[in-house]
């Protein structure tokens, strides 16, 4: 195996420099928290659509989903198809327009208005901590690739990535995040398509891939199917995909994930907000083709790799010629940067709007909030550096991220859904549901190997914590006084929001 050539390295360095300069230019002239956290509400819908998708893909998905496809095959496409598109439709036509009209910065802010301050603070803390932990995983993913391809030591790779991405996110805010993400989407798409093209050429086309996989594992038809039977040993049986992924984790992600929703809130109009989500759903149709299929090709070409996470770097190093390899590595860096910048910006938004402005300094001006947001962004990226070593303890990075999400996404989705769609839901009910769901996911997580037959059963954990959170919220809500009509009239979904209350 060889490392990147001077030409490839030059392409990567030039790309990083260009992104930093662009972000610095974009970041000039921002004066308020709305400029910094919502891009002044002037973001273009098509850029937001691209930004949503590239942030979702990230370096973890490039490595993790391609790695998963190496092991289980086409079923990994569920994460981008049934695990995204139906939820994005709900987001586009119900939730995102609603949040946009409410004029909020964060999801906990909406829940605080609908329920109470305790729900808002609890969720802001959970999301804020999760995002900081997640940053460590993103840095780890980048460092592994940089170490193996560029020969830069792991520790130095972590620090370089943190400083580059942290630097431009601190200065540029959400506007810089979205514009650089749109460029990164194009680079990522082209880079991944190049790996797909070279991979198909090397293996002899689709027929060659099928033949190579059949040679390695004769009769393994499931490798080419989206839906796997219940007795699969992987965590992707059809029940896990339907109940855990499609019905819980995916809606929770596209409706309740601050890092995703925040950029929709930065569009210029409600219609633009809808268009941005639909455009993202359209782009999602193509993602498995350029990420899952290369993972399957990798299995056909290099079946003896120790772990699935090695397949993407392996394809990159062994298939691509000089120059092209630099472009694809830049695409990998692009994916990484888009995840880190989104999570950084959203974490600082949560801590500034839901914690600092609400609990520490209620009279903070918009200018002051922007300064606090920038400071927190810098603090988070520095704090994420040691967390990169923690993430190294997980075998499959994608599983690590999904496991983390599964612990609280179910309860979060439950209270968002009930808060918006059921007027009788109360603050005490939401707090009880959140607590009940979190306890359930914690208990199931610790005793998973005794209860579930699948390995890494995070999709089931998400489903059952969601069910428990719904039940507890309903029971406690019915046992407590109903919320004020003035609150539910304004903050619950109505089929025709233009009609008078």
């Amino acid at each position, binding site marked *: 195996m060889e490392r990147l050539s001077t030409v490839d390295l030059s392409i990567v360095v030039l790309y990083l420099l260009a992104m930093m300069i662009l972000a610095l230019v974009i970041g000039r002239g921002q004066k308020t928290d709305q400029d910094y956290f919502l891009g002044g509400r002037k973001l273009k819908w098509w850029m937001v659509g691209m930004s949503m998708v590239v942030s979702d893909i990230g370096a973890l998905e490039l490595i993790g989903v391609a790695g998963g496809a190496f092991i289980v095959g*086409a079923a990994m*496409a569920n994460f981008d*198809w*049934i695990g995204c*598109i*139906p939820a994005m*439709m709900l987001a*586009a*036509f119900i939730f995102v327009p609603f949040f946009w009209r409410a004029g909020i910065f964060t999801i906990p802010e909406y829940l605080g208005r609908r329920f109470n301050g305790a729900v808002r603070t609890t969720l802001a803390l959970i999301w804020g901590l999760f995002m900081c932990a997640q940053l460590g995983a993103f840095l780890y993913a980048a460092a592994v690739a940089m170490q193996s391809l560029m020969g830069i030591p792991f520790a130095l790779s972590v620090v370089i990535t943190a400083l580059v991405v942290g630097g431009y996110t601190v200065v540029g805010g959400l506007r810089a995040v979205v514009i650089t993400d749109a460029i990164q989407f194009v680079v990522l798409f082209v880079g991944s398509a190049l790996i797909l093209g070279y991979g198909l050429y090397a293996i002899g086309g689709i027929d060659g891939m099928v033949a190579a996989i059949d040679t390695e594992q004769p009769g393994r038809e499931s490798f*080419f*199917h*989206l*839906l796997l*039977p*219940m*007795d699969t040993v992987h965590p992707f049986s*059809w*029940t896990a995909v*339907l109940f855990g992924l*499609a019905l819980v984790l995916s809606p929770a992600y596209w409706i309740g994930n601050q890092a995703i929703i925040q950029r929709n809130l930065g569009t210029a109009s409600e*219609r633009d907000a*809808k*268009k941005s989500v*639909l455009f993202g*759903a*359209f782009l999602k*149709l193509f993602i498995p083709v350029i990420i899952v299929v290369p993972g399957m090709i990798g299995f056909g070409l290099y079946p003896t790799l120790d772990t699935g996470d090695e397949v993407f770097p392996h394809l990159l190093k062994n298939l691509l010629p000089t120059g092209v390899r630099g472009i694809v590595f830049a695409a990998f860096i692009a994916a990484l940067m888009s995840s880190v910048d989104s999570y950084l910006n959203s974490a600082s938004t949560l801590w500034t709007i839901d914690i600092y402005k609400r609990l520490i300094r209620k009279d903070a001006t918009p200018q002051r909030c922007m300064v606090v947001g920038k400071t927190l962004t810098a603090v988070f990226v520095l704090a994420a550096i040691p967390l990169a070593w923690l993430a190294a303890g997980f075998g499959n990075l994608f599983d690590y991220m999904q496991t983390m999400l599964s612990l609280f996404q179910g309860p979060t989705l439950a209270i968002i859904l009930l808060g918006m769609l059921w007027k009788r839901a109360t603050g005490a009910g939401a707090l009880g549901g959140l607590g009940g769901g979190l306890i359930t996911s914690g*208990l199931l997580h*610790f*005793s998973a190997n*005794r*209860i*579930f*037959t699948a390995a890494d059963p995070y999709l089931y954990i998400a489903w059952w914590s969601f069910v428990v959170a719904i039940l507890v919220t309903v029971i406690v809500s019915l046992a407590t006084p109903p919320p004020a009509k003035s609150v539910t009239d304004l903050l619950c979904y109505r*089929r*025709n929001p*233009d009609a008078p209350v």
Partner: protein
Amino acid sequence: MHRFESLMERILAPAAEGLFQGFHAIPMSAVKALFVVLLLSMTLWVITLTREATDPATGRRYPLFRDLRLWAVLILLTQALLYGLLG
């Protein structure tokens, strides 16, 4: 911790096994049909969102290509087709 895990196993494992056997009995062809029907149901729901057909600023109907429902329906039908073919 070990005692706690044993307790959880005694309580939940039989229920988990029952659910497993129940879902395992469903043939994969029916599962595939279920996924396709879910996607088609969502397509029908999108079509019923009549408010989306009208521009709230002017009160006029959007031309077909500007109606966001059209694009949503095309995306969902593509999904249904993919699950029908590859499920």
